[in-house]
C-alpha cells in the first residue's frame, strides 16, 4: 500500500548481487582479514550511523523486556498479579501507598500495604502490573499475527510471482478484493462470526486462551501487502541468469524458490515485517478497545482503555497510560523500521 516501501520498482540487481555474499562470507571470510565485510555487517554499520533509529531500537527492546518481564515485575516490583483486586484501593493516584484489611483470600483479616507505582484502576488493580501483562498480550498477538500473515503472504506471493499465468491472475484478484474491504469492518465481521460460534467458544481452549484466536483473525487481512511485494520481487528475480542456470542443472521449482530466490527477498521481508508491526499493534489495540479483540479479564493495552473512558474525570491516568504505551512502541518501531529500510536497501540512500 505504501509505495515508498516497494523497492520492486527499481532494479533488483544490486540487491540480488549483494545478498549471496551474506551467505558465502561466513565460510570464506574467517581466515583472511582482507575480505570485505558481509551484507549483514555492512547493513548493521549503515543502520548504526542513524542515531535516531538506534535509540528507537533500544526503546523497543526496553518495551519488549518490560512486557515479557511481566511475571518478574509482578513478583518483585509491584507484588501484585494482573487480576488482584482491592476494592478498598480503587482509583489510587500514582505512587500512593494504601494499607487495607483484607477481606477474603489467603490474607483474610490481615492488613496488607501496597504501593501503587502508577496508581490503580476502578477495581483497585495495580496499573503498572496490568500494563506489563497487557503489553505481553498485545506484543504476542502482533508477533503471532506477523508470523501467520508472513506465511500466507509468502506462499501466495511466491506461487503467484513464480508461476504467473492464471494462478497469478486469480490470486492477485483475490488480493484486490481483500484490499477493497475496509480492514476494521472485516475484522469485526470475522471476530463476530468466531466469537459467536458455539463450536469454537464452547471449547475449554477458547475459554482459557481465547485471545489466541485473535492473531488468526487479524492475519486474515494483513497478508495482502507482503504477498504483492513478494510477487513483484519473484517476477523480477525469476528472469535472472542464475535462476536459469539452476534450472539447467536440474533443480526443482521448490529448490529454486527456497534456495535461489528466497534469500534475495529476505531484506524486503525484514523491512516489511518491521514496518508491519506498528499497524498490527494498532489494529489489535483498536479491536480490543472496541471489545472485539482480547476479552477481559485478560488485559491488553487496547482493552485497558475500554473501561477507562467511564472514569475520565476521576482518573485520567487510566486513559493516558495504556495509550501512551501503544504510542511509544508504535513510534519506536516505525522509526526503527525506517532506519532498517535505509540500511538494508542501499539503492535508497545514494
Amino acid at each position, binding site marked *: *500500500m505504501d*509505495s*515508498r516501501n516497494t523497492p520492486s520498482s527499481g532494479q533488483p540487481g544490486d540487491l540480488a548481487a549483494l545478498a549471496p555474499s551474506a551467505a558465502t562470507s561466513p565460510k570464506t571470510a574467517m581466515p583472511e582479514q582482507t575480505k570485505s565485510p558481509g551484507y549483514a555487517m555492512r547493513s548493521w554499520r549503515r543502520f548504526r550511523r542513524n542515531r535516531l533509529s538506534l535509540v528507537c531500537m533500544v526503546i523497543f527492546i526496553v518495551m519488549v523486556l518490560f512486557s515479557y518481564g511481566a511475571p518478574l515485575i509482578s513478583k518483585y516490583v509491584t507484588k501484585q498479579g494482573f487480576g488482584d483486586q482491592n476494592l478498598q484501593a480503587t482509583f489510587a493516584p500514582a505512587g500512593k501507598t494504601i494499607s487495607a484489611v483484607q477481606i477474603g483470600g489467603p490474607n483474610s483479616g490481615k492488613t496488607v500495604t501496597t504501593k501503587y507505582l502508577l496508581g490503580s484502576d476502578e477495581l483497585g488493580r495495580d496499573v503498572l502490573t496490568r500494563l506489563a501483562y497487557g503489553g505481553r498480550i498485545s506484543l504476542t498477538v502482533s508477533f503471532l499475527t506477523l508470523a501467520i500473515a508472513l506465511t500466507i503472504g509468502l506462499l501466495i506471493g511466491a506461487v503467484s510471482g513464480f508461476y504467473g499465468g492464471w494462478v497469478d491472475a486469480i490470486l492477485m*484478484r*483475490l488480493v*484486490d*478484493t*481483500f*484490499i*477493497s*474491504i*475496509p*480492514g*476494521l*469492518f*472485516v475484522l*469485526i*465481521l*470475522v*471476530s*463476530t*462470526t*468466531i466469537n*459467536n*460460534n*458455539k*463450536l469454537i467458544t464452547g471449547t475449554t481452549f477458547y475459554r482459557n486462551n481465547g485471545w489466541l484466536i485473535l492473531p488468526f483473525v487479524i492475519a*486474515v487481512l494483513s497478508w495482502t501487502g507482503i504477498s504483492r511485494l513478494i510477487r513483484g520481487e519473484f517476477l523480477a528475480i525469476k528472469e535472472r541468469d542464475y535462476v536459469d542456470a539452476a534450472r539447467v542443472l536440474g533443480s526443482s521449482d521448490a529448490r529454486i524458490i527456497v534456495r535461489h530466490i528466497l534469500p534475495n527477498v529476505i531484506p524486503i521481508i525484514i523491512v516489511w515485517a518491521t514496518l508491519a508491526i*506498528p499497524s498490527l499493534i*494498532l489494529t489489535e*489495540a*483498536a479491536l480490543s*478497545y*472496541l*471489545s*472485539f479483540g482480547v476479552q477481559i479479564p485478560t488485559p491488553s493495552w487496547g482493552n485497558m*482503555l475500554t473501561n477507562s*473512558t467511564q472514569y*475520565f*474525570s476521576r482518573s*485520567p491516568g487510566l*486513559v*493516558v497510560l*495504556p*495509550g501512551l504505551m*501503544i*504510542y511509544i512502541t*508504535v*513510534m519506536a518501531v*516505525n*522509526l526503527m523500521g525506517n532506519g532498517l529500510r535505509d540500511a538494508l536497501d542501499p539503492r535508497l540512500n545514494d
Partner: protein
Amino acid sequence: MGTYLIKRVLQIFPLLFGITILVFLLINAVPGSPVSDLALNPGTRPEDVARIKQQLGLDQPLYKRYFTWVGNLLHGDLGKSMVTYRDVRSEIMGRLPNTLKLTTAAFLLALLFSVPIGIYSALKRNSIFDYVATVVSVAGVSIPSFWLALILILVFAVNLRWLPSGGTQNLGDGGLVDQLRHLILPAFALAIVELAGWTRYIRGQMLEVIRQDYIRTARSKGIAERVVIFRHAFRNALLPLLTLFGLSIPQFFSGALIIETIFSWPGIGRLTFDAAISRDYTMIMGTVLLSSIMVVLGNLFADIGYGLLDPRIKQS
C-alpha cells in the same frame, strides 16, 4: 482515454462480484448460525428455532443463500435486519450522509494541512520548519487515532468544556455553527493519521520532482520560482498523490468505524459496531458491502482523475 475509461469501469464488476462472495463466505461459511444462540434458552421450543431459521432463510444450503442474497442485492434489496426486522438498506441510507460528512471533513482537513506543509518542507529542506514538520508527522503517523480521540475528549470536552464530546448536534439546535462544533473533534481525530502520512509523502514527492531536469530547465529559463513550484513541480507531484488518496479511502472508513463509535456519531461505522454487538449478520453484511463499494468507487474516481491529468494515459 475512452478505451482506458471503459476498461477501468469494466474492471470493477468482477471485483464487486468477488467482494460479495468474500463478505458472504466470511460470515456464513463458519458452521453454526446466529439462531443457535436461541437454543440456549430452555424456554425455546425446537420448532420455534426451526421456524425462525426458516423465516431468516437459514435452513437453505449455503450456495442457495448466496444466490438469494446476491439476487436481492441486484434489486437493491439488502434484506431485513436479523434483530430489528427493519429494512437494512433504508437503515444504511439514513446513516450514510453522516459518515460522508465526517469522512469528507476529515479528508479536506488532511488535504488542507498536508499539501502546504509538505511542499514548504520540501522547499526549505533541512530548515527548522522541515525538522519540526518531519517530527510532527512521524508522531502523527504513529498515534493510535482512537486514543487521540479519547485524549481530545478529555482535554476539550471534559476539562476545557469548549467542544461537545459526541453526537452530531445539540437537541433543539442543529444550526450550522452547532453542527460544525460537533464535527471538529471527530474530524480531526479521523484526519490526523492520513494528514501526517500525506505530509511526508508530498514532501518526498516534491523533493524527487524538484531534482528533475525539466525543473532545472524551467528555472534556467528565468521563470519565477512560484510558477516553477506550482505549475511545473506540484502538478507532477500531484499525480501519485491521487492514487494515494484513493488508497486512503479504506483507512478513512476503518477509522470512521472507531471514531464514530467513540463520538456517538450516527453513521455507518457506529451502525456496524452496534450490529456486531447485537449479532445482526444481515446488517453487518450490508454495511461492509456498502463501505467496500465506496472504496471501489473511490479508487475508480482516483484512477479516472489520474487519466484526465496525465496526458501519457490519455494517449494510450
